[in-house]
Each structure stands twice: as C-alpha cells, then as structure tokens.
C-alpha cells in the first residue's frame, strides 16, 4: 500500500494533490461538482490535470471493463511515485450494479494497488471529500 511508505514525502504531497480522473461513464458525474464552484476542490490545493505524468492521485470512478482496466494499469505505471489510487463508487469495490456482467471487473485491488475506496453509486461530493480527508488525516497522523 502506498500510504505507509514515504511518510515524509506524502506529507508534502497532501498539501497539493493533482488529480487524474479515469472513468467510463457514470462514475464521473459526481466528481464534476467537486471540481466546480459549489464544492470547490481547489481550496484544498487539488486541481484536475490532463496527463498522468503530472498526477499524484488517480481516481478510478465507476466500473472498468476488461479492455479499460489494461489501459488503467498502463496509466498507473506512468504516474510518478509516490502516488495514491482512489476507487470511487461501489463498482470498484465489488462490481456494484454490474456484479454479474461478463465484461466488468469485480474488485479493483486485483489489478491496481488501491489506497481508498469510497462507497456510493455514485458517492456524493461530501462523501468524496470525506474520503480525501481520511487520507490526509492518515498521512498527518503517521510520523
């Protein structure tokens, strides 16, 4: 798990987290208000970036198919470490609504090391912030 290593580096990282979103369809709809004006994510220093080389945090929102999880693995390899992976929504935890589909993955941590799961379908912006605050508190609490 990424969280436990490099505690000193992570302390610098949580003050300015640059987020890369990787999503298929419905998982991203509740990240948009997080980026927008109402639940502003920039007041914590987080900005959405477009290239995985700039990103500290990979948010995988929603279900991933067999095809897209390979691309997600490639994106994870491209991110400079230390990095944090967040699985958003119940589809990354257990398959969610697509638990018996022949083409979606059922548990994200079989493919990418995940640091945090945020439940919800999709989770509300307050829930997303709650999850991020858990990571921040955990980093601050360790050493």
């Amino acid at each position, binding site marked *: 798990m990424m969280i436990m290593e490099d505690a000193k580096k992570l302390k610098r990282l949580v003050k300015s987290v640059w987020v890369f979103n990787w999503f298929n369809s419905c998982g991203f709809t509740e990240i948009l208000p997080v980026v927008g*004006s109402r639940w502003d994510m920039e007041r914590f220093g987080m900005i959405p970036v477009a290239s995985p080389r*700039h990103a500290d945090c990979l948010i995988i929102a929603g279900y991933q198919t067999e095809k897209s999880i390979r691309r997600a693995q490639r994106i994870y390899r491209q991110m400079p470490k230390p990095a944090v992976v967040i699985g958003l929504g119940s589809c990354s935890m257990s398959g969610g609504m697509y638990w018996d589909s022949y083409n979606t993955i059922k548990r994200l941590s079989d493919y990418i090391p995940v640091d945090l799961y945020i439940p919800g379908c999709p989770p509300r912006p307050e829930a997303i912030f709650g999850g991020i605050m858990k990571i921040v508190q955990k980093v601050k609490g360790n050493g």
Partner: protein
Amino acid sequence: MIMRVLLAMAVPVAGILIGLLYKGIDRILAARMQGRVGPPVVQPFRDVRKLLVKENIVPDDAVGWLFGSMPFIALVSVMAILLYLPLGVAPVLEGYGDLILVLYLLIIPSLALVLGGFASSSPYASVGGQREMVKMMSYEFPLAIAVISVAWLLYSSGAGNVFSLSVISGTPVWGLAGIPGLAGLALIFLCLLFVIPGELGRVPFDVSEADSEIAGGIFAEYSGRNLALFYLADAVKAVAMASLAVALFLPYTVSGIFGLGGAAAPAADFLFHLLKVFLVLFVSSTVMRVVTGRLAISRVVSVYWKYPVILSFLGLLLIMGGTLV
C-alpha cells in the same frame, strides 16, 4: 562591483519568490471571481515543494539531454531577463544590455518549451510544440510594433540612447506627443496588454498546454523536478513580461513625490513597481483568464495579426501625427 554581483544573485531569487506569490494571488482572485473559494495564497509554493519530491521520469524514446536541459534553460533565461529590466530602481546590469537584448531573450523561454516538447517522444507534445511555435510567430508582430513605437517617440523627442532601458524608464512617454499621441499610446498599451497572456500562455492563448484537448500538450511527458523548473520559469516570466510593460509605459517613481532619500527611496520605488506589476498582471492575465475561453490555434494567428496589428499601426500613425502638430 561587489554590490552588482550580490544584486545579480539576489534579484533572480526575489523574482522567483515574487512570481510564485503573484501566481497564488492570481489563482485566488480568479477563484473568487468565479464564485469559488480558491486556494491559499501560498499554494504555488506547496506545488513546487510537492513537485520536487516526485519521481523524475524520462521516457525511453525521448532525447535525453534536450529533455533534461530545456527546463534549466527556460528558467535561467527568464532570470537573466530580470537582470536587465528596471525594477523601480536602475537595472542590475545597467550598461550591458538594452531593449533589443531583452526582446531577444524573451524568445528563449518559449523556444525552450518548444524544444522540450519536441524532445519528449509523445505526439501530444509535438502538437503542443508546433502550436507554441505558431503562437510565437503571431504575437511577436504586435510586440515589435509596440516597442518600436515607444522607441521612435522617444527618439523624435530627442532623448539619448532610445533603446537603453534606463532612458526609457526615465522618460514617461505619455505627454510627449500631445492629444493624438495620448490616444495612440493608449491603443498601443492596450495591444501590449493583449500580447502578455499570449506570451505567458494563459487563457485565451494557452493552446500549447491545453489540458482538455491534447492531454497537457508541451508538458505531457514532464514530471517531478523538470516540471517544477518549468513551473518556476512560468512564474518568473510573468514578472519579467509585466516589468517590461511597466518600464515602457508606466515608469513613474514614487520617491520623488514623497521626498524620500537615502535607502528608503529604492525600497519605496521597488514596492511601487511591484504594485504596478500586479495591476498589469491583474488586468491582462487574471481578468482575461476568467472571462474568456480558449481560442483555437488558427484563430490565435488571425486574432493576433488582425486587430492588434491594425490598432497598433493606427496608434503609431496617431503618435506620428501628434509629434508633427
């Protein structure tokens, strides 16, 4: 001599700190204008500290020495520009370089971006590099007209070496050509304010580092320490560009008004210069960033070659008419 060397070491560092501070102020003001809360003012410092901690990835196919050296060249050249510009006080390297040198030095950071883009082995970065080259070709024209107009006006008013920045910042240009000259100078100042976001790569002219279109553009493959150097170069370039605009058009000092002497005069002038730089950056970079959207690259060229060129030529004609009258 010793003083000059010490200043030559202190001014670039001060430029970095002031540039990052202005970047933070710009972000929080833009956020407030958009109805958000915005990050704290020290956020760019945290961004740079975070970037220095990250891994520095060099792609396998990239041209390694170009890829790694271009961020350094960008930052160093921008810091060098600061040494030739008057920051309220006389420039640090006063007799050694003039306005033409500053104009040439201003090309180097953009060229470093382009080369860095082409040296990364990514199609997104190549597209970003091409767009940056096209953008450079577009905004050099109004910039050159603005500079030449001011130099010509000073020449026809009998100042000494018109390209020396000390002479330019010693002679305010607004009253030299009468009422038509005033109108002409206002037009040219407007065009120069329009060139500044193009030079700095802010919206509406950030086609080369477009996030949503080409996945980061020029910076697509940069990470860690290289990206931090580009970030710092961008911050310092804003201060340098705005200082150039202030030196050309708003070179007023405040120590004469208050009658300060000794050591207080340079300090007051420096602070007043920072205030003027902030105003220029606020109008041309922050407000423009908030109210406009990104232009496509074809429209960038036509926007720069149509309206600013026509307006600045009109301004030049008005100035010439003003001196004849």
